[in-house]
């Protein structure tokens, strides 16, 4: 391969020269930094990485990296990444987005990406709000949060539990990080990228502008108890009862990665056309 002998790069080398549109103090900055540090740590060649996203503040991330990227449609990052990874298994494909993008409009693809178990890393920057559209409730918002003008009495809907859903859908790697803990996050991201299958990392990433109260998350997060669960039943117990603030690798299990069909290559079109000849 042309690219194995790359000079070792620093985190900064993975950043593009674009200035993020994010508000000062937005948690997404820390996610960006943690990711570039992880990429440098793993010494991944920049041109072999593709970062795919949907639409939202968080989904702006790919353009701030100096590797391949696709800023796609709201909610559709996972299928786009699925097509890319299935067609180009040689690439490192990372998907980034927000809680609205991934769990509301993109919920179906989340379920099926977990089931499909392609070797993707999915990073959701969960700020429990729609930042980009100015402060509506997302699936992870508490049902009684009344600060959205769209749902002034609260959504009245139970919170979406990303880890529990991922588990039920069949994901083999489930972790939770925090923008306020960049080292821990970097570590999780490195494990996720190296995991040979679909790895889901929920990152608590406070929105300064529309959820200023989430600044106090730093006082509420805590490491998850013990080693990551290896069997689904234990993991489910944990995820359905936890406070959503436990950080770390919550569940890890090796599953057969997706391979839809054996690729036989070598055959040619003439052989296929011959089927039609009389």
């Amino acid at each position, binding site marked *: 391969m042309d690219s194995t002998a790359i000079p070792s790069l620093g985190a900064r080398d993975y950043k593009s020269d674009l200035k993020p549109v994010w508000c000062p103090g937005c948690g997404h900055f820390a996610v960006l930094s943690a990711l570039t540090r992880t990429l440098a740590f793993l010494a991944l060649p920049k041109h072999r*990485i593709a970062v795919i996203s949907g639409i939202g503040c968080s989904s702006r991330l790919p353009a701030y990296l100096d590797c391949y990227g696709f800023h796609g449609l709201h909610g559709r990052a996972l299928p786009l990444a699925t097509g890319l990874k299935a067609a180009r298994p040689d690439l490192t494909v990372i998907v980034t987005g927000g809680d609205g993008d991934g769990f509301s409009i993109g919920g179906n693809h989340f379920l099926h990406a977990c089931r499909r178990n392609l070797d993707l890393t999915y990073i959701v920057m969960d700020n429990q709000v729609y930042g980009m559209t100015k402060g509506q409730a997302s699936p992870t918002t508490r049902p009684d949060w009344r600060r959205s003008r769209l749902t002034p009495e609260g959504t009245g809907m139970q919170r979406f539990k990303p880890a529990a859903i991922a588990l039920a859908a069949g994901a083999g790697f489930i972790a939770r990080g925090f923008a306020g803990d960049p080292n821990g996050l970097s570590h999780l991201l490195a494990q996720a990228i190296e995991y040979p299958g679909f790895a889901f990392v929920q990152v608590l990433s406070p929105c300064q502008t529309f959820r200023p109260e989430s600044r106090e998350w730093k006082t509420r997060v805590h490491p998850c108890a013990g080693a990551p669960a290896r069997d689904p039943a234990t993991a489910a117990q944990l995820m359905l009862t936890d406070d959503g603030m436990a950080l770390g690798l919550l569940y890890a299990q090796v599953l057969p990665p997706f391979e839809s069909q054996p690729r036989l290559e070598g055959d040619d079109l003439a052989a296929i056309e011959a089927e039609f000849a009389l």
Partner: protein
Amino acid sequence: MVPPVVALVFSDVAGIASTSVGRTGARDGIRPGASPIPRPSVQTNSELADRPHTRRDPLPIRHERPLALAVTGSGGNGALTAGMILLAAVARAGLYGLLTRSAGPQIRGGESAAMLRFGPEPLACIGDRIDLLLALDWANHLRFSEELPLARTSLVLADPAAGTLPPVIAASGAALHPIALRAAARRYCDGRTNMVAVGVVGAVAGLPLAALLQGAAESLAPKGEAIVTAATACIRAGFAVVHGEATVTAAEASCPPAALARWNISGNEAAGLGALRGGVRFVAAYPITPASDLLEWLAPRLPRLGGLLIQAEDELAAINMVIGSSFGGVPALTATSGPGLSLMSEGLGLAVASETPIVVANVMRGGPSTGIPTKSEQADLDLALYGLHGDAPHLVLAPLDIADCAFTFDWATRLTERLQVPAIVLSDQALGQARAICDPPPAAPALAGRERAVPGAGGYARYAASIDGVSPMAVPGEPGHMYTAEGLEHNARGTPSSMAADHCRQLDKRWHKLVAHNYGPTWADIDGCLDSHPAALLTGAAPGGLCLITWGSSRGAVVEAAERLRRDGWLVRVIALRLLAPLQQAALRAAIAGAGAVLVVELNHRGQLFRYLHAQEVLPTTARVLAHPGPLPLRPAEIIAAVQALEDAPVA
């Protein structure tokens, strides 16, 4: 013993002139290339029609070519299999054929009909009527009887044991002949009535026994030898019902050598093949009738070429998956039908804005909404042309016949890769689920493939302006020109921008690359002009006369109508559009120029092509439209009638 044929009547196509002839032997019937053959038909009168199931006259052999026959029944009793075997037999007899089918909403047990038209020349369409109908039973017949127009010249075969004759049959005035299918099936074989029917129908249609047996062997081979053996016995039995036992052995030797250069292919298969020829190696899709066959044909074949197919969770996923694959440098296709295309609208827009080549096959069915999933219509043209938000120019193409599915999908794939824009290809159920014996389709014109980024001096500008509007595209894995593909409006480097100047520049670029491309002469099939090349058209070939404009699967009926009109002395040109967007305005205007009358023909409710051509200012104000919705296909005779109704249509 060759049974005598009573009172044959030759009638012309319109059924006006008629003259009595003597008898025709069964063995004389197959004369490939000898066209037109006079069409013998049983003399019918209401008297005969009033005595169904009672006639005992020997079965007449139908020698007219092309001949249209139908085998009908309930789902599960094998009408469609019979049709497949007859089509294969037609091929082995050295003829061309076109097999269409009709099925109801039931998954099993509903009505089904196989309609086969065949003759010594390629078949453009299914024609105006069924000349020979064999009913395995009459259950549900009413549900598709409107798809089986009978004339007084038609012959209907039915087993008296198959139930009461529907009044619609008697009303048609067609000749009736009872035929003891079930009894024969019981006597000669293991009871496969439909196989006996193949023998009977094949014999009455003038096909050699050897061709029928070879057709059965080929079609049934996957089901195992026992089935083939049983079918052989049944077909022989059926053949003997018509020709008598004695002839069967002699007839076996008479199968002419098959014209091996021909193909037996369905429209959906041809579409899949065209995509493979064009370079498609990744497919993601969600099942939907009538596109599923196309996908199911591709599924096991893609891996043989190093590709793959993913069944997506829905159409939104499917189109984004193909965008992802193409972004990764692997040409990609998805296939769907109307409801799925609606769901892909947003994804199509992303492909336009991010300049990602993809092919979207829409195998149209009846609409709107869930509509009529199993029947054909050409009513998704509006959606395909206009159904994206914002100014989002893209390619829209339509194959013109079954074989042309291969050409058009091949071409569409090459165009999308060359122009970095999505292509919607509008096939339909009538093409996709029909089979033809046809000449192998030609390859699409060679085109430079996707223009790839080359390492340059400055930073890589993915969306830089260029003379032809196409910017070189980097593919992940290549060092030196990383970029982020973008669905927000952006500048040349792909950085999001809401400035008017950037927006204008990118809109212009995306428009320009489409209109600046030289599509060559295959934008339409034009016949009746001296040369279909625009240059020749511009010099005013074939002035005056009637100009018929159509698109997609309606071409066949239009071409056949034009041929008949020409025989009646009309000067007719036919323009069948294969490339619908960007419309080749200048070439089309030139092709229309000088026509005395213009009629647009299409299969939808309000004339979507007609309105589109007006939108593009290519039609004279005197142009008229013949549009009717599916599921009934356009027939040559109704086109001829519409032409005759045009007030100012000049007769040359």
